[in-house]
């Protein structure tokens, strides 16, 4: 028996130790909510080290946050991003001003070339329905406007005033179906009437015998009593010749983008 115990003493020792450890564990399982003396002692013993380590850790963390991790750079980045956003907004505003400036310069240039009394006006509204093509400008009878005045931009004709109140006027655009402008083809002086067709215009009553090419410029004829002579209307983009008849129908793409009108000139009188 003793020989057996001596032979397997290590196993017995480990088994007994394991049973002891198991007993300690099972005992502590019953007192899970209590802090034992051993635990309290170990925690007490290690707390100064933890505090020291925590202080060091904090110092290192602060140091790394401030210098190594470049938290200031991150803050600067946030501020700079905000600044970029603000400056982008300013840039957009400046772009807007630049475009407005460009438009006004063109208008002034046009004004210089035309030598006619004109009044600049700003488009303040568009037609309430999609059936008609009219705009409202911020100048009216008090500014010397009346019905039947030509409204132009640097690119060409816009339309004519149809209603005037004291401070605002409504302008019938040249592409409205009710609009008719006396026109002529620039290179061969073929006369016709440019009538609005929604997005484009048609040049009616152009003689069939006249040689017209796609791309020819169409200008105002100056015979209708509204528009001065020589203002661009658009370019011919389609030619329709019927088998018989005196006239040909020409489609004109207007030189003015009516959907982007912002500033216009109202021609108050005949060119000087």
């Amino acid at each position, binding site marked *: 028996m003793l020989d057996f115990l001596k032979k397997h003493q*290590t196993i017995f*020792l*480990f088994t007994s*130790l*394991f049973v002891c*450890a*198991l007993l*300690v*564990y*099972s*005992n*502590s*399982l019953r007192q*899970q909510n209590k802090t*034992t003396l*051993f*635990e309290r002692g*170990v*925690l007490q*013993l*290690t707390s100064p*080290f*933890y505090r020291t*380590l*925590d202080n060091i*850790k904090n110092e*290192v*963390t602060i140091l790394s946050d401030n210098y190594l991790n470049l938290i200031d750079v991150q803050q600067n980045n946030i501020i700079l991003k905000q600044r970029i956003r603000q400056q982008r907004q300013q840039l957009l505003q400046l772009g807007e001003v630049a475009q407005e400036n460009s438009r006004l310069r063109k208008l002034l240039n046009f004004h210089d070339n035309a030598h006619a009394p004109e009044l600049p006006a700003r488009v303040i509204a568009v037609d309430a329905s999609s059936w008609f093509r009219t705009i409202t400008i911020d100048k009216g009878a008090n500014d010397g406007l009346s019905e039947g005045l030509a409204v132009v931009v640097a690119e060409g004709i816009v339309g004519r005033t149809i209603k005037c109140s004291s401070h605002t006027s409504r302008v019938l655009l040249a592409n409205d179906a009710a609009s008719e402008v006396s026109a002529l083809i620039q290179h061969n002086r073929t006369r016709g009437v440019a009538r609005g067709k929604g997005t484009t215009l048609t040049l009616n009553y152009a003689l069939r015998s006249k040689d017209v090419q796609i791309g020819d410029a169409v200008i105002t004829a100056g015979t209708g009593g509204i528009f001065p002579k020589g203002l661009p209307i658009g370019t011919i983009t389609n030619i329709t010749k019927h088998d018989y008849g005196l006239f040909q129908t020409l489609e004109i793409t207007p030189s003015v983008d009516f959907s982007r009108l912002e500033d216009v000139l109202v021609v108050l009188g005949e060119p000087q």
Partner: protein
Amino acid sequence: MKRLVLYLIVGIASILTQTSILPLLFGLTLRPDLILLLVLYIGLNETPLAGAFYAWLLGCILDVFCGTTLGLNGMIMLLIFCSIYIGRRQLNLKNDLVLPSTLLSLLRARSHYNKRKTSNQGLKIWH
């Protein structure tokens, strides 16, 4: 006694490092078990009675900082010590690769245990 104090100092320092410094360096993704290394060393170098006590004590100290029940890690460390002590007869202790290879196999066993433990607690931590 000297050895006990030495192991206690090294053990507590290991636990301090393991619980306070290493998480700063590796985050929660990697937590080297330094007490396991110490138990491995004890298992390869100490006598059965003293070594078992050291291993159990170190495990219990680890329990103070880990989990809620005192004695669980003590029991585990004791088992690990016993396994190493029994297995060390099969090892050539003069070979330099003994410690790393034993450590590797132990780490695998330990990580398996930790995974089961953390999965029971609903934690997703790699050990």
